[in-house]
């Protein structure tokens, strides 16, 4: 049960598919969401909203990769990518935005031009 030895190498956060979080997440590392998060998310590195995941939150991260459902405003300091299974509703602000064929998106895009 105590997995002390692999504490450091995988210093990332993974929210599993059955997990529901209602509140605020602040990560000075990468965050992968397979479950449900409602509230506010602030990530220093990459945020991945995987297929099947549901996020209802304002999001701020270095890079944001969405393949699930995301409702909320997104600020990606470097890059935002909506993959084919993504469904996003909200405003997107990022210098680089990729929306794949098949992805759904409703909201404003601000690429800071």
């Amino acid at each position: 049960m105590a997995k002390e030895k692999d504490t450091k190498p995988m210093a990332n956060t993974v929210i599993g598919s059955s997990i529901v979080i209602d509140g605020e997440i602040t990560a000075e590392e990468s965050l992968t969401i397979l479950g449900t998060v409602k509230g506010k998310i602030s990530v220093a590195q990459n945020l991945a909203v995987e297929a099947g995941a549901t996020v209802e939150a304002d999001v701020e991260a270095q890079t944001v990769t969405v393949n699930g459902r995301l409702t909320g405003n997104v600020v990606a300091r470097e890059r935002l990518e909506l993959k084919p299974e993504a469904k996003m509703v909200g405003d997107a602000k990022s210098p680089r935005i990729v929306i794949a064929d098949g992805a759904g998106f409703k909201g404003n895009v601000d690429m800071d031009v």
Partner: protein
Amino acid sequence: MADKETVIGSDTRISGEVRGEEDLVVRGRIDGKIQLTQTLTVEKGATVQADLDVGHLVVLGAVVGTIVASESVKLMSTARVVGDLASPRLTMEAGAAYRGRVDMGDIAAARAAASSRAVQRPAVSEKPAIRPAPPRMATLAKAIVATKASAPVAPAAARSTVTPSASVPAPASPPAFPRVAGAMGAMTPAWAKKKIRRR
């Protein structure tokens, strides 16, 4: 990352409510409330300041809050835990530090008391205030009130019913003294009487 177990990394902090039906490993920090059907592991260096309602709990780090574990609680040698605890099984390693009330009996009652208290508390806002641990005696009293709210309390009969046989069967071999109400009553703490009466 193949098995995608839920891990709250060492540089991650969550404020709010976490629910789930899988194992959860905390290396960072969670403030608020955790409800989990499986095993919650609080790693060394991790901090959890939350009311816990879990299946199994394994603590190597710091936990402050009310703990209800339907299966077991393990406090490892580096554990630092403050708060009332209800679980049918409890193990504590040498070096573990704990302060609080332990109830290894009625988990359902403890859970009911914990959740009724949670309802009274305002919903988790954007910034949950850091909450001091609840007074221990009050919590137990609440648990007892919750289970026995309707039962009549008979203080006069209480002393004579204080026998260890209710929860802990006395060995048959050593001769037992006739119970002197005054002496034994004074020696048995008030909570113990309540406890036995409850069963």
